[in-house]
């Protein structure tokens, strides 16, 4: 289907552009401005060109923080996306059980992020927390404050607990939006459960899945509050992710220039990855739609 060209559609988009431009363009300009200056005091500024960018890019600690961040973000996607889809498929479609499950699943999303960190701080302690005590009881020397691997896994588990519902809710709403005609057509064709998933549900979920994957990617890439509260970045720097490193630079050392340059590089990296993911998912999606089953569904629906 090719969309018609209609320049009047701009009028529908205009309110959004005004809203966002008001609060987005000015801040970005300020950051760009800072990134090329050495701010000694509010009155004394020196133009330094790309100096901050070069020094940030050569920063060894940044490189390791970056690697940790990438590994973490991909681990988050690898666990949360399949789990979220499975959860959406398993949730009841109607009735009071559907309502109850929806509310229960969504609860973890509603807890402010600093509280999430605090709960897990207690929850993971081996003396007074359930998780810590349980792991200790089955014979694991579990300690999220002492062992880097345990700390990393705890932060990941916390993220899975906190954010899988986002993927699940989006997919659930996406699944409910598939017209019955598609399933009827599949039933007539004698399609297996797997085929229904592969050729009807998955292609129809493409839109919401793209949102879920990108949201989870960008948010996990910017994760700050939860690991900060839980582990403070440690032990060592096992859970020091990019934002925390950035904040240490900007707030801890008052290096506005390098921090601004860092922010821009940070932002460009997120942008690049999202762009690649976005285009890749769009291409994958267009290949798998237009199958016989969904065509039949489309005809049945109209």
């Amino acid at each position, binding site marked *: 289907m090719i969309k018609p060209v209609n320049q009047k559609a701009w009028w529908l988009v205009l309110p959004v552009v005004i809203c966002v431009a008001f*609060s987005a363009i000015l801040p970005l300009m300020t950051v760009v401005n800072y990134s090329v200056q050495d701010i000694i005091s509010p009155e004394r500024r020196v133009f330094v060109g790309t100096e901050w960018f070069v020094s940030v890019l050569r920063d060894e600690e940044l490189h390791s923080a970056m690697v940790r961040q990438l590994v973490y973000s991909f681990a988050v996607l690898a666990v949360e996306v399949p789990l979220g889809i499975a959860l959406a498929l*398993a949730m009841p479609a109607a009735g009071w059980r559907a309502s109850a499950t929806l509310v229960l699943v969504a609860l973890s999303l509603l807890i402010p*992020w600093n509280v999430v960190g605090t709960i897990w701080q207690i929850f993971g302690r081996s003396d007074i927390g359930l998780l810590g005590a349980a792991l200790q009881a089955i014979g694991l020397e579990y300690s999220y404050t002492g062992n880097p691997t345990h700390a990393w896994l705890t932060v990941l588990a916390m993220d899975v607990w906190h954010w899988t519902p986002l993927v699940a809710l989006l997919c659930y709403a996406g699944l409910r*939006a598939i017209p019955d005609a598609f399933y009827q057509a599949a039933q007539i064709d004698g399609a297996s459960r797997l085929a229904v998933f592969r050729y009807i549900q998955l292609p129809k979920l493409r839109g919401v899945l793209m949102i879920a994957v990108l949201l989870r990617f960008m948010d996990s890439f910017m994760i700050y509050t939860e690991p900060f509260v839980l582990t403070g970045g440690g032990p060592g720097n096992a859970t020091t992710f990019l934002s925390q490193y950035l904040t240490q630079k900007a707030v801890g050392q008052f290096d506005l220039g390098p921090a601004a340059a860092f922010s821009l590089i940070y932002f460009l990296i997120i942008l690049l990855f999202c762009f690649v993911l976005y285009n890749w998912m769009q291409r994958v999606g267009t290949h798998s739609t237009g199958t016989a089953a969904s065509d039949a569904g489309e005809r049945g629906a109209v």
Partner: protein
Amino acid sequence: MKGAHWRNVFLTSYLVFALLPIYWMVNMSFRTNEDILSSFSFFPKHFTWANYAVIFTDPAWYSGYINSLIYVAINMVISVTVALPAAYAFSRYRFLGDRHVFFWLLTNRMTPPAIFLLPFFQLYSTVGLMDTHLAVALAHLVFNVPLAVWILEGFMSGIPREIDETAYIDGYTFPRFFLKIFLPLIKAGIGVTAFFCFMFSWVELLLARTLTSVNAKPIVATMTRTVSASGMDWAVLAAAGVLTIVPGAIVIWFVRHYIAKGFAMGRV
């Protein structure tokens, strides 16, 4: 029905995993600090309402909830209202620069909020909006409007364009078609969008804290009071945490039908 059996086992085990940390928080909220830190216990041994009493009797605490609710509601309404027509335009038409504008909107969602801090502070001080609910609501538009447009566009694109064309042939004008026919079709999408706008605005700490001081101080900022020189007030923080879940749970309870029913194509 073997499949259904495994489905329930999976669902139940996930729910247990999801609810245990929350149960632990509820458990903590009914205990005293000494009790929390000294012993491991599934149930509060010395059951107490004291932590909730602290919150409900101190205006500094409960006004935090009211302030948060006000700016979150303003933000949710603005976000969804401006995003609906824009999402329709993106899902139905091509126009000059459409892809670029769409991606530009998304880039705002990708910007770490820390970047916006200082500029927002300067901007709102200049126009005299500091420490108002409107300031936080407007600031949160940066990430919620793009998200709303994006989610709604996904849902709208799932609806065949034949519906629009049929309605126009039947003599519907655009506003009437949009309100009477189109919006009911994407109820699920609107429900999900409203919920996500609510959620992201509700839990955001950095901007909300920076742009307010007294009159519009949000609950997430009030909570940081539990960290003091004498140590952490775990019990009150847990009670406050339990109470922060409540408004969101009510929101999802209201939009659950929109999410659960989805759209009823065959019945149009």
